[in-house]
């Protein structure tokens, strides 16, 4: 269980994240949703201490994360971000196994685990193992990024627009894969996106943010049926309108 309490980040006299409190239950996937600059990424990075909060606290399973050494904390948290950040001088095996090697695993154990996670993210270990990141497509690179984050069996996954740079078809495939993996491993995850459709597809609960504060928290259904204000309503209206257009097209074209 993750608990954010009164979490605040100030740059100068501007609070980018302002006294944000949130609880994420075990095996739950919470999406932080908002336009760019709303503080969702900053919130995410305060959870693995890539950014240190100005005030407030984050507790994981009851322990304040400021009690951990930063690098030890991060080894227990999977982190996936839009630019992927695979190390170009390392093979896929070395990239996926990097946290394991930091944890002091033996080479044979690392290799075995790398094969497992590559299969989990639907990549062929035989083909991929000794290749370098630059020879992979964008979608393959992000699958490797997921494999790297999952390798050390993290208790928590943080995802910062992981599909943001992919074309729609690849994105759809990866979303499907991710949903399956998430169910299979009962992952606890916090997922940042500005794409409401993506949030609807993936989230157990959605946290809508604006200017560092939470506007509304609810299930996807809650947000569609009971938007709290005009901001949320506008946000919800786009995918609903698109869905209606698609529905109409299907109806007029007859049976598919």
């Amino acid at each position, binding site marked *: 269980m993750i608990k954010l309490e009164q979490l605040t980040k100030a740059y100068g006299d501007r609070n980018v994240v302002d006294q944000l409190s949130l609880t994420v239950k075990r095996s739950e996937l919470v999406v932080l949703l908002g336009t760019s600059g709303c503080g969702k990424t900053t919130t995410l990075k305060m959870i693995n201490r*890539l950014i240190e909060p100005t005030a407030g606290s984050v507790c994981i399973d009851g322990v304040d994360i400021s009690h951990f050494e930063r690098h030890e904390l991060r*080894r227990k948290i999977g982190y996936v971000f839009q630019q*992927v950040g695979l*190390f*170009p*001088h390392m093979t896929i095996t070395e990239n996926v196994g990097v946290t394991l090697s*930091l*944890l002091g695993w033996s080479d044979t154990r690392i290799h075995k685990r790398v094969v497992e996670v590559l299969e989990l993210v639907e990549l062929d270990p035989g083909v991929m193992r000794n290749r370098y990141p630059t020879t992979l497509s964008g979608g393959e690179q992000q699958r490797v990024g997921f494999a790297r984050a999952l390798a050390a069996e993290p208790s928590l996954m943080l995802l910062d627009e992981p599909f943001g740079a992919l074309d729609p078809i690849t994105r759809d495939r990866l979303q499907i894969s991710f949903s399956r993996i998430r169910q299979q491993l009962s992952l606890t995850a916090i997922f940042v996106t500005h794409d409401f459709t993506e949030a609807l597809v993936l989230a157990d609960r959605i946290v809508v943010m604006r200017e560092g504060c939470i506007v509304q928290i609810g299930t996807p259904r809650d947000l569609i049926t009971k938007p709290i204000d005009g901001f949320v309503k506008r946000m919800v209206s786009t995918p609903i309108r698109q869905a209606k257009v698609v529905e109409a097209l299907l109806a007029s074209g007859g049976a598919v």
Partner: protein
Amino acid sequence: MLPANLTGHIQLTLVAMVLGVAISVPLGILAARVGWLQQFVLGAAGIVQTIPSLALLAIMVPILAAINLQSIGYLPAIIGLTLYSTLPILRNTVIGITGIDSVYTEAARSVGMTSLQQLWRVELPLALPVIVGGIRTSTVWVVGMATLSTPVGATSLGNYIFSGLQMRNYTAVLVGCIAAALLAQLLDTLIRWLEQGVRTRKRVPVVVVLLIFGALYSWAGASLIPRWFESDTRPITIGCKTYTEQYILSEILSRQIAARTGLETTVLSSLGSTVAFDALRAGDLDVYVDYSGTIWATIMGRDGTSQDRDEVLHEVDRVLADAYDVQVVGPVGFENAYVLAMRRDDAAAKNIRRISDLVRHAPRLVMGGDYEFFGRPEWTSLRDQYALEFESQRTMDASLMYQALAQSEVDVISAFSTDGRISAFGLTILEDDLAVIPPYDAIILVSNRLRMENPKVVEALADLVGTIDADQMRDMNLAVDREGRTPAAVAADWLNVLRPIPPR
């Protein structure tokens, strides 16, 4: 196996590069993380780089002498070269590390690396090509600059170049230049292969290159180590400045000492003028020949008007012993004065015999001088006392000056009175009618240390006092400059035919 000049050059380059990398890479890593240090370190290295390389090496001599360290030879050369190597390595290390895309550093932190792990596993590998680029630039620079360590007493390919230029042996100059260029290319290529091998993880080229470097280093080290251990039984070290007469005299001194005492001797050739004196004072040089007028004007700061030859000798003798810990053994027998020389026909046409006659024509004439001349007190005295003013002044290498005069590119030059080329090129020496220039007796100087530790050597040298007159010296100079004989052969002949006292 390989000529000593090449061996010395490789030693200097390799040692300076290892030190340069060992200092600059860690400093660059530190500077990449600490903002103020980055400004400071890059600024300091930049300043070092702007010092002319020869000056950077030469300035090490008095500095090392002042702190009682070996002031000529390997130490000043290594320190100078190491300092000179730092800037490209430092700058590329800083740029290589600070230029890494933040995506990779964020990824490194997010997977749980400590900052040291991030450095080793991510930053250094990614910055490697840039850092190696700096090392390669530096290596090429250092190989080139190492040729300039000859004047501070370290053996290098510069010995070919400096002595070749002096003795008009352009083959030697070319050999020195080409060998340096090839060495630079070789080292550059080896480092490039090493970097490529490391980056693409090909074991064979890495191992091969490392073996070659290992061999070079162990061989360089093997010939360096005895040098350090033998510091107690160092050979008698004879200094030699950068012109023909000095090459011959140093050979004569060396052979005389060896024949009379059986001690081992070594000649450090092509030293800068003040480098030789500083080193003798510090006891790093045992003996060399200087000139009374030079000591009088340059070291003692006296001006030269109407001084008697014996008086100057006597005064130099006294002051050097009292204030500089340097002993004058005695005059060699000839004078080698700074003189002004012109083409004979030109002087005749303008009816110039004395410097006073020159004054009227000077504003339409070009004056050529060696590297030192226009900076020396003798020139100031000449200019002021005669009110000499030339159309322009040109500084050039002494060996090229005579050629320039013969080809009318300059009209008057500063020459040495014993230089065989004065007669060979058909030049006229102008009389110093106001007696502005002091007398220049060639004198044998020894360090106090030699006098204390090896009185036999001083005795052997004392037997050379008064044995060479100006004509003999001029003939010997001419034999080297015009007939192309080696200074060693000329010196040997002189000692065989004219040795004043036969060996025991």
